[in-house]
């Protein structure tokens, strides 16, 4: 890192944090601390919602995903705008009418204390783990790329977030997220412009998109459906519009880290507009991030890519007995790239002249070299795993950051690192804020100490923010000791979201179903989801649909049985 990069990185992060603390100083009660005195305007809510969802992994992994798999990941977000409309129409008015601090508070009003506590506890376990991962996942990549210690990187992200979240509560989270979102989008647009400008002189923007298309990366929408195979295809139109809808309904309608963002609105109208703003802009934003990944892919058609994007992991192998083996494979990979060059330029020339036969011939040739390169990369991964068994051989998360560090000029590297740190901080801040408010409102104030004064609950909220922050840092620090932790946490999220959404949908739309029925229906639905997870190949997005539908079905059946039993008791 050069001096200018340090100045840009520290200046950007420092300004956002200090501005956030200064702007939101002096909350005197829990209303101000957890709901920002209901003073947030729609654009603050909208940006805050987007910044909460966009974690650092969004900016590190998504371009890498597009590099490997093309644009089709965008379909994952197709259900989101529909969910924003449904929440605006139905959920927001109910939350406002009941003046709730958390989503789970509403469940006691509708059902009973045990259902509220069950949903709050499920959220605390799931989000508590996720907060650690939100810090750990980018820290592991940033520490590798920057040569920092993992503990220091965890501490830098965690401590800074704790300071401003503890100080200003919900308002500080939303105010800082507005700035962080500006940095994130500005940084990504600059990165996109830079990667296109690095393409050879004879390759224009249109040619680059055409090359990406001919090499299978512009696969944005896939409407095809096969009853036998499409269920385990994670990203197609149908799983995006249905599974994605249920996931977005669960996340934005029942997850306190998002609910807190719009509960701080000045009015129902401001909260609605904030959510609809997200519904309008989320897909274009994800499209941009994926498209940058595709342009990085095109860039590496004309510039030698590393055989393995995690250079630090590769360098470790060079210090072992497998160094020669790796060196030979790297040489082979570079030779394949040189041979591919002629074919890539032929493809560009054929695209320019619109010669279909020449395009197909060049396309086939490029694909042959690409497949040969892939084969060598697989062998490299095997060597890395043999030489250093602890090493992670999935390197797609390193594609974008490795490009940034190697090719962007001084200052812009600092800006892009500020993007990633901002994203890590914005999602962690929302999580800590939501964990603290759920702990205080749904557990501490409701079941432990119900007679405290406003000052007491304000202090308790600050202390719980600190406590959850420390737990998150601790979890992030020791996360590497557990295998496949990130995957495990993602799966835990998918397993519980459907059931939680089912409880809320029953609460909103099925007035006949009461507390006992929904409580036991949720437990049964959870067992069904666990069965699907352990014994079937169904893609995780569908768990949200299955869990949700199962709660509703079991709720009806159990309510029927309980209702009959009650009638018999009354008759007896």
């Amino acid at each position, binding site marked *: 890192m050069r001096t200018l990069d340090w100045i840009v990185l520290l200046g950007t992060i420092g300004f956002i944090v200090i501005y956030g603390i200064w702007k939101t100083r002096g909350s005197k009660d829990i*209303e*101000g601390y957890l709901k920002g*005195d*209901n*003073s947030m305007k*729609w654009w603050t809510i909208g940006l805050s919602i987007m910044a909460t969802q966009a974690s650092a992994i969004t900016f590190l992994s998504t371009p890498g995903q597009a590099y490997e798999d093309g*644009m089709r990941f*965008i379909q994952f977000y*197709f259900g989101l*705008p*529909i969910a*924003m*409309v449904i929440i*605006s*129409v139905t959920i927001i008015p109910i939350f406002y009418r009941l*003046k709730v601090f958390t989503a789970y508070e509403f469940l006691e009003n509708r059902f009973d204390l045990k259902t509220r506590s069950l949903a709050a506890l499920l959220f605390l376990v799931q989000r508590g783990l996720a907060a650690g991962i939100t810090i750990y996942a980018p820290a592991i990549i940033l520490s590798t790329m920057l040569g920092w210690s993992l503990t220091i990187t965890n501490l830098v992200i965690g401590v800074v977030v704790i300071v401003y979240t503890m100080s200003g509560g919900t308002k500080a989270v939303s105010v800082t997220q507005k700035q962080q979102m500006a940095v994130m989008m500005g940084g990504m647009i600059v990165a996109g412009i830079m990667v296109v400008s690095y393409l050879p002189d004879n390759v224009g923007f249109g040619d680059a*998109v*055409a090359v*990406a*298309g*001919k090499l299978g990366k*512009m*696969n*944005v*929408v*896939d*409407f095809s459906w096969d009853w036998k195979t499409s269920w385990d295809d994670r990203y197609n*139109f149908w799983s995006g519009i249905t599974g994605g809808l249920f996931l977005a309904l669960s996340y934005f309608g029942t997850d306190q880290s998002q609910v807190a963002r719009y509960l701080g*609105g*000045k*009015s*129902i*109208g*401001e909260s*609605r*507009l904030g959510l*609809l703003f997200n*519904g*309008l802009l989320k*897909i*274009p934003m994800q*499209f941009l991030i994926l498209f940058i990944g595709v342009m990085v892919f095109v860039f590496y058609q004309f510039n030698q890519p590393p055989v393995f994007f995690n250079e630090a992991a590769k360098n470790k192998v060079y210090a072992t007995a497998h160094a020669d083996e790796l060196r030979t494979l790297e040489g082979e990979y570079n030779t394949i790239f040189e041979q591919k060059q002629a074919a890539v330029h032929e493809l560009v020339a054929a695209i320019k002249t619109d010669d279909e036969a020449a395009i197909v011939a060049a396309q086939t040739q490029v694909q042959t070299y690409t497949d040969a390169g892939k084969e060598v990369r697989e062998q490299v991964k095997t060597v890395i795993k043999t030489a250093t068994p602890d090493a992670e051989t999935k390197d797609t998360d390193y594609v974008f950051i490795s490009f940034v560090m190697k090719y962007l000029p001084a200052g812009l590297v600092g800006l892009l690192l500020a993007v990633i740190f901002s994203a890590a901080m914005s999602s962690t801040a929302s999580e800590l804020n939501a964990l603290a408010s759920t702990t205080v409102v749904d557990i501490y104030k409701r079941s432990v100490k119900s007679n405290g004064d406003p000052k007491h609950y304000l202090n308790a909220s600050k202390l719980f923010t600190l406590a959850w922050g420390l737990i998150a840092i601790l979890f992030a620090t020791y996360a590497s000791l557990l295998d496949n932790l990130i995957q495990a946490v993602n799966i835990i999220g998918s397993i519980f979201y459907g059931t939680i959404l089912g409880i809320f949908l029953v609460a909103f739309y099925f007035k006949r179903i009461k507390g006992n029925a929904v409580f036991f229906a949720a437990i049964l639905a959870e067992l069904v989801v666990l069965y699907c997870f352990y014994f079937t190949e169904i893609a995780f997005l569908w768990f949200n649909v299955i869990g949700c539908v199962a709660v509703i079905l079991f709720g009806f059946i159990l309510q029927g049985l309980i209702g009959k039993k009650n009638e018999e008791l009354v008759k007896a």
Partner: protein
Amino acid sequence: MKKNHPVDEEPPIDKPPFFKTWKGMYWLVLGNLAFMILLFYAITKLYE
């Protein structure tokens, strides 16, 4: 809840911008989604 608002602040939005009712805003979001899906489909077909 609104007692903490300073009196000189802008009034909160209760009606959507550009439309007379919220229904218009909802159709804008859904229409935008439909437009994007069609656009993405066109891009997929154009560049495949």
